[in-house]
């Protein structure tokens, strides 16, 4: 369970291009549910996601993850929490070019010291679940958009995180692929994972599997 209290995020504080991305956001994200942040681009969704996902620290306010306050944890510890608790799926997939799909999926687990063999097995299993086992050794540049996305999802799941965060996941997908994607998220939710999505795509926001929709505009909740 994630709790945010009076979160405020300001970029370039004190300089001429000072910009407040998020203003006075307080909310609680329930465990095991699918939550969607709905809002136009520039509304602060991405910033909010990166704060929830321990990628950035808020300028003011406090955050609790379960019972632990993580607001001012040093970057070092924030990262290890992030690695174990969260799995990220980025809008542009952000896969590393030049290496295979399998290698990409295993990357987040490299610093944890698990043996390569066990990681190959884990990734292989995930690839099978998502139907891309035959593309495991291909370079990511040669995969289609849908295949790349599944690799990105597998990568997000390699460390078996409790929370999945997806930023505009259907932005580059047509309707059919979008619906397949939502199907995958249903799987994750049924598995007990908490899913947080940011999207302004109605296919996502109006989907029956979504438990809660939070609207954001200009850095504030509606």
């Amino acid at each position: 369970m994630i709790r945010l209290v009076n979160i405020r995020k300001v970029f370039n504080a004190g300089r001429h291009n000072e910009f407040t991305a998020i203003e006075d956001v307080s909310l609680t994200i329930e465990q095991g549910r699918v939550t969607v942040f709905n809002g136009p681009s520039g509304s602060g969704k991405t910033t909010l996601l990166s704060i929830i996902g321990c990628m950035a620290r808020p300028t003011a306010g406090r955050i609790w993850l379960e019972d632990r306050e993580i607001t001012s944890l040093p970057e070092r510890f924030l990262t290890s929490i992030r690695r174990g608790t969260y799995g990220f799926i980025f809008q542009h997939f952000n896969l590393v070019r030049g290496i295979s799909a399998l290698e990409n999926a295993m990357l987040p687990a490299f610093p944890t010291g698990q043996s390569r063999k066990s990681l190959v097995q884990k990734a292989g299993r995930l690839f099978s679940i998502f139907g891309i086992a035959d593309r495991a050794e291909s370079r990511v540049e040669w995969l289609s958009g849908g295949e790349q996305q599944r690799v990105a999802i597998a990568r997000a799941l390699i460390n078996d995180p409790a929370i999945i965060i997806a930023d505009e996941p259907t932005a580059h997908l047509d309707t059919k692929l979008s619906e397949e994607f939502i199907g995958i998220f249903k799987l994750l939710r049924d598995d007990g994972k908490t899913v947080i999505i940011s999207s302004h795509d109605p296919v996502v926001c109006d989907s029956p599997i979504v438990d809660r929709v939070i609207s954001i505009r200009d850095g504030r909740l509606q």
Partner: protein
Amino acid sequence: MILHPAIIALLLSSIIICLMVVYCSYHGWILVRKWDITSGSELQLQLERRTYLVSTVLGYVFAFELVSLFLYIFTAENLHSMFVGAMCAAGTLNAGDFGYSTLLVKILVFFLAGLWLIINHANNKAHDYPLIKQVYVLLLVIAPITVVEMVLQSIYLLHLRADVITSCCGSLFSSSAAAVSPSVPFAAGLRLHLLLWPALFLVVVQGAFVLAKGRGASVFALFCAAAFVVSIVSVITYISPYIYELPTHACPFCILQAEYNYRGYVLYVSLFGGTLTGMGAGAVDFFGQTGSLREIMPRLRSRLVLISLTAFLVFALLVACSMVFSNLKS
């Protein structure tokens, strides 16, 4: 100056090390003043990132200092033929001012840098950087000492003059140096070797006590430091003649050579390593009594004590074997 490549290497590396440490202490100075773990500001983030830089640099400095220590002794060893009467490194170090002083300061920097790394490691383990001030104050102490080391080494190396043939008279008239005895001057008169086995015994006993009861680590650190001094002097005056099987040859450097199976390396590495980890255990214990370190500290301390004890035992074993199996009968 003897324009030997190794001398150039030593001068160059000490300048590099000095610059790196001084650069880090500049950052350290800012850090000590502006650090505030509770603030989430940009500045704090920058400072946290800086700590990575300083840790990395000091890690390398420690490694370089260690290698440079050996290079220094090797060079002294290699150049001994340049000086009338010098039989080994000991002679070379005597041939100029500050030869031995440089060695002592190098050893000091080695220990301080090693301690810094251990304390910094402990600091990084806790989630709120509890020892950050201590760590950077220690850095500010180390920095001027590296400058002193560089200065002393430079004076020594730059003023070394080989005893070579000058114009018509040969070295007979140009060098008035009497044959330099291979023994290290200050150690000769002391009879510290009598304390060797008691000192080692105390270290082992106190170490076991710390492992069992979790207390007394500071005393352990003190015993280690004392054992270090006693051991070094004993190696020079008492043990090395057994290794050389020659009662008059009391030299700390020749045991590093191939003809003695490089025994010197094992001796010195185990002794230095044991002392460093022992003192590290004491430091970690001293700082880790409160706050976020309290849970993590005991494990770290035990590991350090264990390494220290192993090292001292290896040292003791090698010393005992060298003496028992030597052909020299006292």
